[in-house]
């Protein structure tokens, strides 16, 4: 049976991990490769590297980082952040990324998802959706949450899959960083609306939150950053807990 996945997310700027971490046993907690390798050893099922570099020049740093990750780490990883064209995707996949996640550009450029799926296959195209609850509806936000797209999250998720996305990474912005738990209702609605796997993100604070979103929330995978970085939860312990709850994990 297919297991549920636990995915740590690492924010990377100019080739370095930016959110602080508590891993004093690492020689260099700022090195994404070293941190990623540690998560892989702890039992992470996948990794996401989110590039938050501001300039195009700095993005080249990301490609060389991707190659270093691919050389060292023996589990799959996704790269996201500012990807806007077929060329960006080609460069990252060529560098060794297993999947890429795209967000704003897929909304702004009609046809981009379809072209990416045709060129590289849906299996490596993840549509990231940042959603916020407004006036009784879950709405899509772009550019790191700054700009309202004016479309509903569920409708966009369906459309993105029709256009060629092979997976959905759903972040509920209202929950992000709050540690109040994942938004179960929208996660379940998106998961039931599309026939591809859905990764839930935003709000993870405890083991129970992961169990909830993987059962009630119908998520196929759960992503988190700070709870792992600050050592509040170890992936090993989390997976043992999920096993006790009869949730299938590796």
């Amino acid at each position, binding site marked *: 049976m*297919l297991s549920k996945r636990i995915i740590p997310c690492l924010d990377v700027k100019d080739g370095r991990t930016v959110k602080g971490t508590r891993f004093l046993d690492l020689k260099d907690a700022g090195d994404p490769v070293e941190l990623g390798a540690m998560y892989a050893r702890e039992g992470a099922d996948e990794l996401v590297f989110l590039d938050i570099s501001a300039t195009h020049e700095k993005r080249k740093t990301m490609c060389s980082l991707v190659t270093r990750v*691919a050389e060292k780490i*023996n589990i799959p990883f996704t790269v996201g952040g500012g990807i806007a064209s077929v060329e960006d995707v080609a460069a990252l996949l060529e560098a060794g990324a*297993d999947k890429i996640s795209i967000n704003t550009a897929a909304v702004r450029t009609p046809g981009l998802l379809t072209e990416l799926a045709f060129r590289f296959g*849906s299996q490596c195209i993840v549509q990231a959706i940042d959603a916020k609850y407004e006036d009784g509806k879950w709405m899509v936000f772009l550019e790191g949450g700054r700009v309202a797209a004016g479309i509903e999250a569920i409708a966009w998720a369906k459309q993105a899959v029709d256009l060629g996305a092979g997976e959905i990474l759903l972040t509920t912005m209202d929950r992000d960083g709050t540690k109040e738990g994942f938004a179960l209702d929208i996660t379940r609605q998106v998961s039931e609306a599309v026939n591809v796997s859905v990764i839930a993100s935003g709000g993870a604070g405890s083991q129970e939150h992961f169990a909830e979103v993987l059962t009630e929330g119908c998520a196929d995978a759960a992503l988190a950053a700070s709870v792992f970085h600050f050592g509040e939860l170890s992936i090993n312990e989390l997976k043992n807990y999920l096993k006790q709850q009869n949730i299938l994990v590796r």
Partner: protein
Amino acid sequence: MKTVIIKYGSGNTRSVDFALRRLGVSGSVSDDPEEIRAADKVIFPGVGEASSAMKYLLERKLDTLIKELKQPVLGICLGMQLLCECSEEGNTECLGIFKQKVKKFNGGMKVPQIGWNNISNLKGKLFKGLSENEFMYFVHGYFAEQSKATVALTEYGPRYSSALQNDNFYGVQFHPEKSGTAGEMVLKNFLEL
């Protein structure tokens, strides 16, 4: 020992190459018939679509070359599917080393299957030292049916062949190069055949 990874435009050749290097083996990535024939071990990887991959192989006459190989050959993911009789993906005639068909998942499961799933009913040297129900990483929308060549089973809707073997030909539907230490063990077992 010389290991060659066949280059054919449908590839995660780089990931496989990196995985070999982590095992201390330097493989080369090549589409040169002489180099492939001379190798001790041949790896036939693949991520992509069946009909365009077969077209590429036919254009470069790599189809006949692969069928004639006598050394151990390991097909990975699409590589394994291309070693089967035919695929529903693009209605493609494949290489026919394994006699089964490759079919599309249908029946309400999410497609493609993405993630870690168990392998069971393990047979043969490829799985030496691995335990039943070991988790491996899968990414695929089509699956190979069961046959006499089946050496591992996985369940996603139907129970299907997650590994195949016929003489010197081996195939795995999962990605050993991305399946942590368990996957590395499968690669190591193949290299030690």
